[in-house]
């Protein structure tokens, strides 16, 4: 058993941390405040290879592994949860299904620009009437000769509007229920593909979340991902891995908040001594540090399993569940350590607390994670 990162992974972490500190952190508060997605940050990340970490050079990637990817998401999220989810959605949700289920032609056409970061990716599954119950979707894809015609809408789309390539799901045969769902690749700018309203969110405000709308949107069958009826499987398989990206985001947000709280506790004096001399604060920090470490180990383990080609569905669900809850708890406690200042936007911990909440909700709520885990363990 090895609990130390390889020198290469350590070097990657150091690089992403340096990058995050210098290029991402300084503008994090402002981008949050004004709800700005800054594409230039993603462009800089892409130049350093971050947009295509796990994919091979033959697809424009770096040829590293999932562990490097989760480390990158973690380090970005440590200073800015929005930048973390931008990368997570780009790699786990948009690039992964194309890599795994796409034809060679689709990989060259869509995965390559995603991996090189010249294009940004997004994923469209959720609808107003179908969240956790994804099979209840109402967006339809009707075959018309060699094309499909898409109608309907998807909501809460991370990178919506900013992304150029979307992996979306629609019903091709309603009578087959979840076996009648099919995946498609849709490019921004396609006639009948519209970007709807932008959500006003509690957190991760520097990452756009929008509605996407299909109005008689004609897609050639060459953009169908996988076989007809395979969509639900693709969606679920994608979320299995996506969960781990969110777990990494949660670990990063928690780590960032914990470091802020620790530094503040050392600096801030009350009753003639620094806060950290008070046992009430020490216990908070000790709990934070312990839970983050546990969440990180679960996350790295799931990433390692995925990198080894081993089953990781249960591990990633556990990682996402535990890391998401940890992020919420740690950021809330970090605000508490800061007291009144923590509640003020002068300090970053309130932003981290707002950013943390979504990690318990998206890519499968933590309630759904428990369902997933229970399904695994009851079949063991």
């Amino acid at each position: 058993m090895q609990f130390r990162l390889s020198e290469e992974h350590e070097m990657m972490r150091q690089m992403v941390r340096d990058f995050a500190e210098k290029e991402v952190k300084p503008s994090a508060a402002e981008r949050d405040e004004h709800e700005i997605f800054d594409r230039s940050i993603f462009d800089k990340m892409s130049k350093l290879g971050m947009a295509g970490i796990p994919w091979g050079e033959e697809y424009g990637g770096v040829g590293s592994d999932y562990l490097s990817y989760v480390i990158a998401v973690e380090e970005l999220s440590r200073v800015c949860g929005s930048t973390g989810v931008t990368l997570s959605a780009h790699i786990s949700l948009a690039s992964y299904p194309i890599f795994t289920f796409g034809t060679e032609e689709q990989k060259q056409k869509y995965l390559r620009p995603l991996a090189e970061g010249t294009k940004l990716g997004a994923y469209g599954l959720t609808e107003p009437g179908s969240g956790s119950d994804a099979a209840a979707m109402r967006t339809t894809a009707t075959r018309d000769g060699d094309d499909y015609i898409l109608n309907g809408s998807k909501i809460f789309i991370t990178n919506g509007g900013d992304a150029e390539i979307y992996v979306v799901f629609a019903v091709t045969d309603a009578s087959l229920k979840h076996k009648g769902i099919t995946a498609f690749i849709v490019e921004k700018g396609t006639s009948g593909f519209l970007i709807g309203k932008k959500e006003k969110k509690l957190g991760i405000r520097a990452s756009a979340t929008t509605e996407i709308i299909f109005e008689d949107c004609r897609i050639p069958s060459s953009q169908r991902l996988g076989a007809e009826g395979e969509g639900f499987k693709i969606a679920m398989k994608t979320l299995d891995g996506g969960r781990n990206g969110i777990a990494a985001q949660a670990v990063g947000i928690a780590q960032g908040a914990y470091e802020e709280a620790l530094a503040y506790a050392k600096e801030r004096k009350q009753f003639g001594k620094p806060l950290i001399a008070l046992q009430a604060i020490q216990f908070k920090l000790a709990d934070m540090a312990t839970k983050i470490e546990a969440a990180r180990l679960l996350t790295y383990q799931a990433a390692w399993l995925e990198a080894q080609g081993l089953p990781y569905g249960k591990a990633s669900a556990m990682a996402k569940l535990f890391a998401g809850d940890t992020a919420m708890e740690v950021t809330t406690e970090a605000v508490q350590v800061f007291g009144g200042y923590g509640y003020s936007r002068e300090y970053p911990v309130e932003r981290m607390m707002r950013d943390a909440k979504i990690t318990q909700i998206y890519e499968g709520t933590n309630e759904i994670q428990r369902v997933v885990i229970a399904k695994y363990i009851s079949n063991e």
Partner: protein
Amino acid sequence: MNILVCLKQTFDTEERITIENGVVVEDGAVFVINPYDEYAVEEGIKLKEEHGGEVTILTVGPERVEASMRKALAMGADKGVWINTEDFDGDLDEHSIAKIIKATIEEQELEFDIILAGAMAVDDGSAQVGPRLAELLNIPHISTITKITVDGGNVVVEKDVEGDMEVIESKLPLLVTAQQGLNEPRYPSLQGIMKAKKKPLEEVEIDDLDIEEEEIEAKTKVLEIYLPPKKDAGKILQGELADQVTELVQLLKSEAKVI
């Protein structure tokens, strides 16, 4: 163009530094490429990108230095030569390091048109190894440069002289030392990090070199190392502007004793 870069690994001065028994405690310290040497690495890579050739990193130190050398390789240097001092018992100072590097250049038959080094290391701040090495190799050197242009065998350098600037012309071969402002070192890309592990990193023992141990014995002795005195928090004056000015002048006279 053959480019040699002298790289020293130092502890990160932005991290906590602990001193015990007169030495910096290595356990728990964070080690980085000496920031001035990182400018040298970056400039070496830029010169290679412009003129072609190869960048070789030369580092003297114990096993931990490999991480810093790999980082330089990840940034874009081509190979490294590491002079391992892990098993060397004696004391080494700047004169020793310069002699070791010179002997390594000879032993490894490293050809060079230009040698880059940092203006100084942030740990001991002595700024000697570069110039000493140039003297030993009998080539010219220019220290604290903020710009360099190479055109054929001619070199034009801008040198920082205590805030002023000198423009100096010279010829290759040449040794220059990098001052802050020379460039903005790049982040090693993930592709670069992946490639770095496959790049050659030659290990040389001091015993392998054509050099006697007495020749490289330290000529200086460090008597004491201590942390800088703790700075008190600054004072922010309050009240009417005119009163603040009066108070400030008074404080500058009585407390700071600068006027």
